[in-house]
């Protein structure tokens, strides 16, 4: 059922892009989010300096937003240093607030400003793959009210598509198959950790190297991950020189 929802949302995104929308893939995805979830606005922030950062850099980079209120909400959180998107990173899960007027104690700085901007409900979904923090997909509504279960499922799928979008933009080659994010096998994450230790690098970089290897050799990501966890494949500092162990 939800495999269908994933497929439906992905094809809607691809159709919009194919229809010649000149905006970036992430902007188009934010517009799709607004339309599909019938929220008032959506914005995505992509964390800056992934390649060089230590993974903890709180400074945020590119903001894609569907309207000025969404942009304002993203900026406000940066200014006051609190809000749903920042909480989402701390807790590791989404932050869903159906009625902002109940959050004065939780976010004394953010709440009055957000209400003044015109938001009544806010929903923030972290974009991450474990410790690899990539950004967030944030939505607001101008009336209080919770997202339905179906809307939440779709919002989580849209967040997966957004996560995949950040990854492919970092990789520099398009791939619309975001299915790997739903893979229940732990080997992809274990292999990422092993590569991180092999290269003494960040989780983000390790994940990108793993995916780059799969892309270069046209192998399924899980297969490459298993070669790493089976210690048949090691990564070295030179991307073109990954060490194959005994050929399988």
């Amino acid at each position, binding site marked *: 059922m939800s495999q269908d929802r994933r497929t439906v949302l992905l094809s809607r995104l691809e159709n919009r892009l194919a229809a010649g929308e000149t905006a970036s893939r992430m902007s188009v995805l934010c517009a799709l989010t607004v339309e599909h979830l019938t929220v008032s606005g959506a914005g995505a922030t992509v964390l800056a300096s992934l390649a060089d950062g230590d*993974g903890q850099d709180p400074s945020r980079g590119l903001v894609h937003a569907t309207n000025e209120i969404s942009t304002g909400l993203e900026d406000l959180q940066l200014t006051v240093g609190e809000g749903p998107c920042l909480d989402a990173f701390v807790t590791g899960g989404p932050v869903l607030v159906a009625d902002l007027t109940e959050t004065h104690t939780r976010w004394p700085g953010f709440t009055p400003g957000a209400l003044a901007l015109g938001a009544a409900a806010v929903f923030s979904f972290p974009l991450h793959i*474990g*410790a690899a923090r990539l950004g967030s997909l944030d939505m607001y509504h101008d009336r209080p009210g919770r997202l339905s279960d179906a809307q939440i499922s779709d919002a989580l799928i849209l967040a997966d598509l957004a996560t995949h979008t950040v990854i492919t933009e970092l990789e520099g080659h398009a791939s619309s198959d975001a299915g790997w994010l739903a893979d229940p096998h732990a080997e992809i994450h274990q292999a990422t*950790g092993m590569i*991180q230790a092999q290269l003494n690098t960040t989780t983000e970089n390790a994940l990108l190297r793993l995916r780059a290897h799969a892309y270069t050799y046209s192998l399924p990501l899980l297969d490459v991950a298993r070669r790493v966890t089976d210690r048949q494949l090691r990564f070295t500092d030179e991307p073109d020189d990954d060490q194959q162990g005994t050929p399988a």
Partner: protein
Amino acid sequence: MTTRREQRLAQTFVALSDTLVDDFDVLDFLTLLAERATALLEVTAVGVILSDQRGGWHPTAASTEDAHLLQLLATQTHEGPCQDSINTSTPVTSYDLSAEHARWPTFSEAAVAAGFRTAAAVPMRLRRRTIGALTLLDTTPSAVDTNGIQLGQALADQATVGILHHRALRREETLVEQLQATLHHRVVIEQAKGILAEAGNLTMHQAFQLLREHARVHGHHLTDLAHSLTTRSTRADDLLEFRAHPSTDTRE
């Protein structure tokens, strides 16, 4: 039910309640629950599977972090007693996995290859939803009996309580937030296991044990320690040193 089993039962629920304090680590709790469940239900292995709330299911805790068990648990997110239990919201039992080819072609083959003879699954329910399942696997032909299923259900309910823990369920949103956070922390732990496994040439099971033991001795949350390894605020070598010389390590 034997007296010995009653004692174990009491001890298990005391241990689980002791863990459910204000500030505890949900993945540590679910692992403890899976470990205790194997002893209590007299089965070989127990796994906790959770909904990703977009149609997928993810192994989240297990009685052992053995790589083959985790692979098998991942296999049964698509097909097997766990999926059937989730779909029907009732317990599902197989008394002979080798005869289940028609029902579960992929899972039964993988489970038998891993040495398991019987399997059962009980749903983790919350209100009208099924948020996950407990899978029980055994290498002996004696399947979990009715008492065992009831106990398994009680443990599955405890697991649900643990995931929601101190957050009162006043808000529907809390369930989504907590489930997603738990799944996220599981991914961080897998990444941290990889770091330790590589740095110390450990198996994934050894890496997990080291993470857990180090966190326990130092009074840290398992997930916090895993996260600080991935962000390199904690060095893998510090944990490996602790593993080599646990007694010389100063307790904080």
